[in-house]
């Protein structure tokens, strides 16, 4: 089950990446975003970073140890944003 924050993040992913054949509510929060699972790539990571910056005001940086884990699933990404956003 997605939490409300995870659903919001899923909607952002679908919108930012034009995942037209997927509905936000159907993304498994534990599914891997890259590689197997959703099969996203580095260009998608770039789009996600920009969308996150726009929506949450959080600047994504890959040199942060935490970012590497954050990008593994919808759940981890949502948790990362919740703990890093200013408001």
């Amino acid at each position, binding site marked *: 089950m997605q939490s409300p924050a995870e659903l919001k993040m899923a909607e952002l992913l679908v919108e930012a990446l034009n995942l037209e054949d997927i509905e936000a509510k159907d993304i498994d929060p534990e599914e891997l975003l*890259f590689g197997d699972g959703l*099969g996203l*790539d580095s260009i998608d990571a*770039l789009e996600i970073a920009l969308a996150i*910056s726009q929506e949450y005001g959080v600047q994504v940086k*890959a040199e942060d140890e935490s970012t590497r884990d954050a990008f593994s699933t919808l759940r981890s990404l949502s948790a990362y944003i919740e703990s890093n956003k200013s408001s």
Partner: protein
Amino acid sequence: MKNHLNHNCYPLVDRSLDSYIAIILSLYSPLKLNTKVNISQFLGHVYAVAELLPPHKYAINLCENRYLFMVSFCALLIKNQINLLPPNKKLMTQQWLIEKYKDVYVLDDSKLGESINFTSVSESEASGKESKQFVVNILKADFVNAEKIKNIPNIPLNQLAAIAFTSGSTGESKPNEKTWQTIVESSQNNALNMLGNRNELMYQLATVPPQHMWGLETSVLLPLFTSICVADVKPLFPQDIYDALYALPSPRMLVSSPIHLRAIMKLNILSPYEAPIKVALTLCATSPLSKDLAKDIEILFSSTLREIYGCSEIGSMAVRETSKEDVWQLFEGVDFSYQKNNMIMARTQYLPQKIEIFDDVKLIDENHFILKGRSSDMIDVAGKRGSLQEINNVLLGFPELVDGVIFIPKNNSKVERLVALVVLPDSIEVAILKNYLKKYLDDAFVPRVILKTNSLPRQENGKLPLAEIKNIYKDLLKIKFQ
């Protein structure tokens, strides 16, 4: 061209021993953060890695860290082994290379964790097949205590140095062989045409991979022959790119692609960068750059932006200042000429054969041309070029497929992704087809969206009118989101 070429060898590096070739910005490097590496230290690292190398003919060079890639590349050269530069890091690709070249091992720096691995080596692919290849991790070399070397080794000009593979759409990407002579002459030519008369040391940041032609030419080979000190990182996110540029001394040079430049500008609009950075020269290639984006980058970085046109077979061939001009100027030493059927062939002094240019090019005079369009079959997804026909052939090879087509929807300003419309038996899930495509296609060309439909509007001659396909696609989306 320099006269060393009269001999049968040319030095591995054409720079003074105390000049800087690399600067360490990666937190995961075996070398200390912010250190600059001079040629003498660099050669020490090359010999230290060369000692690790097993006696085989070929090595797949997968090093991620740009400096470690450069060291490995040169270590292979002094051992007379050949760098295989794959279009991606997929296991499938490695297996294909091993089958093709046999006497192969893999060079890797994987414990570095220098960047998040956003490439999709699939788990099932990794665990399903027992990997037989022989992997050498170059971090076993002692970088910190490596001896400084005062003698620059010479490499025979006819030695095969590297085989670069085009980012072709299917696994069967085309090998482009580069002898040391080709590398020396093309790099000297690139220095002249990309950098002009600059002689002062420039600090270069590149956002593109060292294994691909554009990154190889600019961030690995140029520093061997001209005054460039290259950062060892490959930043992806715009904030990382900005921070890395900020960490570099002046004068700075940025080597990038339209995708990364667009992200830099977009983040600047969302939250303007705090400190202004001056970048003396920005070079951009891999896919077409818009005039507006070129202007914006020049203003943001107080920079001159040169866009480079090239192909995998030859490398960089032409340049323009995109903010000011539409016309491309051919590099000195590169000629385009019309052949029969109005085909354009490119020729350089450093490649024996002529190369066909597939794009729609109009020659203005012998040194200038206009790029009217890309060839209709050749598509560009996320900076990778592939043949739409080859991609469709892979789709049509899916055993259960009744009918199907892959195309570019061209529906917004974001990075274009491919879409597939397929007719499949009810029992076959789209996910099964997607996994099949992932096995045979480069990630960039796997359709992002695959939609099932009942039939496709094939004409009697078997052709599918694009306009009708797009209409079906739009209708399917409407139904889905009603």
